[in-house]
């Protein structure tokens, strides 16, 4: 389970405007009828990208100007709602490498970090400037420096925040905790003996 450290993400951005974009919006529940995460990228923001009749809505994700964008930019409280990992899986499988938003719901943030999808929080003011820059000039390269917690894009440069453990995990390639958790199994077994479990006997 050795993972490459993620010290920076650079790419073009796409703006999915709005606050409180929930995980049902990111991937509607009826597309979670599956037993693997394969192909979930196709259903990213499905209900806002297509009309119920299946016609395109000119959603930014489908706008040719933003084709190949790898950084998703959105508003406050991104990823609220359900704990479905299908949401960050859909984002990552649609080709995104990072998300910049005004804030993240906690479970979404943790799920994303585990997948190596950094979620950087910017102030409303910086976010607004970044959004208008991307919309004016879709080819602008956006760089997230995970170590310095700084975003640069064209003339813009502003600080972002990231939970310390997530930053540490990304920089050290330990963002997926499984190896570290497994390493402590003997200690876990000792503790387990002291913790009662529900039983019918």
């Amino acid at each position: 389970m050795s993972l490459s450290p993620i010290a920076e993400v650079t790419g073009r951005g796409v703006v999915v405007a709005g606050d409180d974009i929930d995980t049902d919006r990111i991937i509607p529940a009826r597309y979670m009828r599956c037993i693997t995460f394969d192909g979930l990228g196709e259903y990213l923001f499905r209900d806002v990208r297509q009309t119920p009749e299946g016609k395109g809505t000119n959603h930014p994700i489908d706008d040719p100007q933003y084709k190949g964008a790898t950084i998703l930019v959105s508003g406050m409280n991104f990823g609220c709602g359900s704990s479905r990992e299908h949401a960050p899986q859909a984002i990552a499988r649609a080709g995104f490498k990072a998300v910049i938003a005004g804030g993240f719901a906690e479970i979404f943030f943790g799920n994303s970090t585990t997948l190596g999808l950094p979620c950087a929080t910017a102030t409303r003011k910086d976010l607004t400037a970044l959004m208008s820059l991307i919309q004016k000039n879709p080819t602008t390269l956006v760089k997230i420096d995970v170590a310095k917690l700084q975003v640069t894009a064209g003339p813009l440069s502003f600080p972002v925040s990231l939970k310390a453990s997530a930053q540490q995990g990304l920089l050290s390639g330990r963002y997926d905790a499984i190896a570290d958790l497994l390493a402590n199994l003997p200690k876990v077994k000792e503790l387990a003996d002291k913790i009662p479990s529900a039983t019918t006997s």
Partner: protein
Amino acid sequence: MGKTLFQKVWDRHAVGILPDGSTQLFVGTHLIHEVTSPQAFGMLRDLGLKVAFPSRTYATVDHIVPTDQRTEPFSDSLADAMIKELRKNCSDFGVTFFDIPSGKQGIVHIVGPEQGITQPGTTIACGDSHTSTHGAFGAVAFGIGTSQVRDVLATQTMALSPLKVRKIEIRGKLGPGVYAKDVILHIIRTLGVNGGTGYAYEYCGSTIEGLSLEERMTICNMSIEGGARAGYVNPDEKTFEYLRGRPYCPKGKEWDVAVAEWKKVVSDADAVYDDVKIFEASEIRPTVTWGINPGQGIFIDEAIPSPEQLPEADRASAKEALEFMKFKAGEKLAGQKIQVAFFGSCTNARISDFLEASKFLKGRKVAPGIRAIAVPGSQGVSKICAEMGIDKIFREAGFDWREAGCSMCLGMNPDQLVGDEICASSSNRNFKGRQGSPTGRTLLMSPVMVVAAAVTGQVSDARLVFAKS
């Protein structure tokens, strides 16, 4: 300096600190369902790992099960593949599965407490954000993602950073027709849908003490809608009474030992909180949502706010909500026609929900043209409702009485809204598209308010509809 229940339980379950600075936390009880677990088992197989403590994981099937007819194979082949996969995973890895034929199947957050698996002072995790429900018993319960489900299966632990604790004290007696659902909708409306980010909510005060365990579950259930990953109530005599004699609870002498331990986890009187908020029960009235997030709610006798009236940060979302819902600022929700009434979900599909609503529904009829469905939270709830004749009251009123599952709360099974139907719903989320139709409109409210809407065909103040004439 005293400790909160959260801190005591956290400390007791902490294995150690991981290299990234987070805590490796032991999970006393792990619950799984068919939607968020198959990929986790897949990852275990890929890594060649076993389930470390199979007796600490319990499975049921809830999200995708049809609620009308249960003959297998299900007509939806994807749903059918999911239940079969869960059966195989539980059998391969030695996990107890409350499958449909067991008579114990149901929504995972209703089954856990019903079976007595949910116990005070424990840590509980489940790949479902409404895991906060179990906090009603004084457990510290977290919704987790699928990679974490894998972590818990493989190690019975997960990496997590401690939460801050906000004490939410609610004082006094709720007025007639005001329920636990109204309390939590009011809290979310007041503190915001992201107000709880980084916090566990400790619900306390005389109002909470006066509530039954089932009502406390309704409140803890929706902690996540307020942004709080966990919510809990300190265990008390009511908690122990609810649990006594349940299948998975300790028996005989062991019961007394367990209760003595459970009493120790209660927050100390001098515990220090990161934040405190106080609410007066007398100020809470029946609450209904008008928008596209659970914080966009109003009292039934209030008008829908205009975006300009709201704090600047909430305006854009309010405009988007009005447009989607096709409502106008200044309108009242009372009188708004509905097409569907949904009575169910992990928020409000327990025995007391059906019992309370049945008192008002008895002898009344669902208004013509309204599609009304009642979905018990578990086979156990269903059985008791049948014994008490509650199902009959619902059926005679014109409700479609279904088998247990999540159903139209999230529309993963065939129970879905059609087009832009308006649904009076006892569930927990009013997000765009939540109930299965991209343009469907959800109004969250208490179960009794759902019944009032069903019989009048429009959003109504249940206190007036059911006033003793």
